[in-house]
């Protein structure tokens, strides 16, 4: 079942085209990642889905509803964690959760959410006194307090330290296990790769590719490299004849095989057929960074500097 469908979305601000032509669909229960360089149109796309911007053309369907026409209904079913939004300094954690739960027809149990997000200890702490990770968790809790079918999480681990990021990731997986469809906007490739079932790469206001993380990586043009040593003599042609192999080099007794596709299994199969045992076998894995390079022609943004989490 389709949770979210964006078709030919186009949005410009004056002369500047923010989103040129973006289409994708998200299935129910999926974690769908959106990655792309700064200014690619990620945020405008997400804001249009949330009904904060009115598209110039194209259509958006959130559980069959239009975010502009069916504004109220969409807001009941869509939880949003926005980049650059915040809460009053002096509001306490429990107050914010109770207040936001009163906004919805059929809210989640906010006390249970507070427990799930590990905020119960901080229930009487004012927003301004929370650490970065705690603020982020509160923001996620508030995005979920309306019992949404879909949650949009925009740059959710920016500014968190590595431990807090990993904690947040496992939290997102638990939320998905509760049946919430998640749209995840991120510029962290490891985050997108780890969490997403499928990923859309957006570049220059257009969708450059949509695939599973593994699919995107496999389509990346970056070369893989397999390195190993052998004791028995080995004829180079055993490897150079393989269709996936583009180069073979022997350096200090160590073989370096470069190529594309399923390089490792091709090489392993060829070595087995030649009855040669490979030792010290290493594979240089391609990752989502390589895929990002392939589809956008740019390296992913360096991660924003980590803030140390206090308290």
């Amino acid at each position, binding site marked *: 079942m389709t949770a979210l469908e964006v078709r030919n979305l186009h949005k410009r601000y004056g002369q500047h085209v923010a989103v040129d032509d973006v289409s994708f669909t998200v299935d129910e229960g999926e974690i769908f990642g959106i990655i792309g360089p700064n200014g690619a149109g990620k945020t405008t796309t997400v804001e249009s889905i949330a009904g904060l911007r009115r598209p110039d053309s194209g259509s958006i369907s959130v559980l069959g509803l239009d975010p502009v026409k069916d504004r109220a209904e969409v*807001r009941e079913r*869509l939880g949003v964690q926005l980049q*650059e939004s*915040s809460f*009053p300094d*002096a509001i306490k954690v429990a107050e914010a959760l109770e*207040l936001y739960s009163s*906004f919805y027809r059929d809210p989640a149990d906010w006390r249970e959410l507070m427990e799930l997000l590990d905020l119960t200890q901080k229930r009487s702490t004012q927003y301004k006194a929370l650490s970065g990770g705690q603020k982020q968790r509160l923001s996620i809790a508030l995005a979920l307090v309306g019992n949404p079918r879909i949650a949009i999480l925009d740059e959710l681990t920016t500014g968190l330290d590595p431990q807090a990021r990993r904690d947040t990731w496992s939290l997102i997986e638990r939320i998905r296990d509760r049946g919430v469809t998640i749209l995840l906007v991120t510029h962290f490739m490891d985050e997108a790769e780890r969490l997403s079932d499928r990923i859309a790469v957006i570049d220059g206001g257009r969708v450059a590719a949509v695939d599973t993380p593994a699919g995107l990586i496999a389509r990346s043009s970056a070369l893989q490299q397999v390195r190993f040593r052998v004791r028995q003599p080995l004829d180079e042609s055993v490897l150079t004849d393989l269709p996936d192999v583009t180069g073979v080099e022997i350096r200090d007794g160590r073989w370096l095989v470069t190529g594309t596709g399923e390089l490792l299994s091709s090489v392993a199969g060829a070595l087995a057929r030649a009855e040669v045992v490979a030792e010290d076998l290493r594979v240089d894995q391609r990752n989502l960074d390589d895929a990002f390079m392939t589809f956008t022609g740019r390296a992913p943004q360096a991660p924003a500097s980590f803030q140390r989490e206090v308290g």
Partner: protein
Amino acid sequence: MRALPKLVAVETKLFLRDSATVAFGVLFPSGLLLGLGAIPTLREASPENGGLRSIDIWAPTALVFGMVMIAVQHVPSVIATYRERGILRRLSTTPVPPRSVLLAQMIVAFASVVVSAALTIVIAWAVLDIAPPERPLEFLVAFVVGYAALLGIGLVAAAVVRTSSAANQTGTLLFVALMFLGGAFLPRVVMPDVLREVGEFVPPGLQALTAAWSVEAGEITATAGGQPFWLQIAIMAALAVITSAVAAKVYRWE
């Protein structure tokens, strides 16, 4: 609509945690009145004041401090902060429209001004023996309409400033200007006629408040060319409508 009572409850708590605003907006007017009331010469009946004490004539001015403080300093600063920090933006992704939080904010601010005024009137009566407003209905109308005009000015400020620090600066300037022109810094009796006449058009309308509190004090502070009470009220009401319309027109949510 369950959200509005909750919003009012939460905004009330936030207001009470803002100790500077509580101190200056709610408690300061009573304190100031008590402080001035402690000066013996201000408590002496003087023939040139028609037998009234200076403190009798000055008492309504204490109210104006709280009203101006809340309407042009506190409210714009909160609204600008809510906008600047994306609090309104975050609300607009929920089923509750962000204007609800602004409405809740207005309700709390008005309640705080009422508490401030009630406190001042009770303390004036109990401690300084200043009788409560002689014409309660007129006083209530002058108070509500005068506050509405002040709030309108505050809302225009909130609508045009970009940042919370700009809101604070604008609020302070407005505070000083309104207090001076409204005749609240200097006793109205010692101000030049021109300023006293202007003061009848400056929110919250100190002359109307004074006249409704005490007819005798009103006669002393009135100018020769002064406007009748209800015309002053009408001017304040018109100012309230115009400023609110301007604020609504130019307001930016983001």
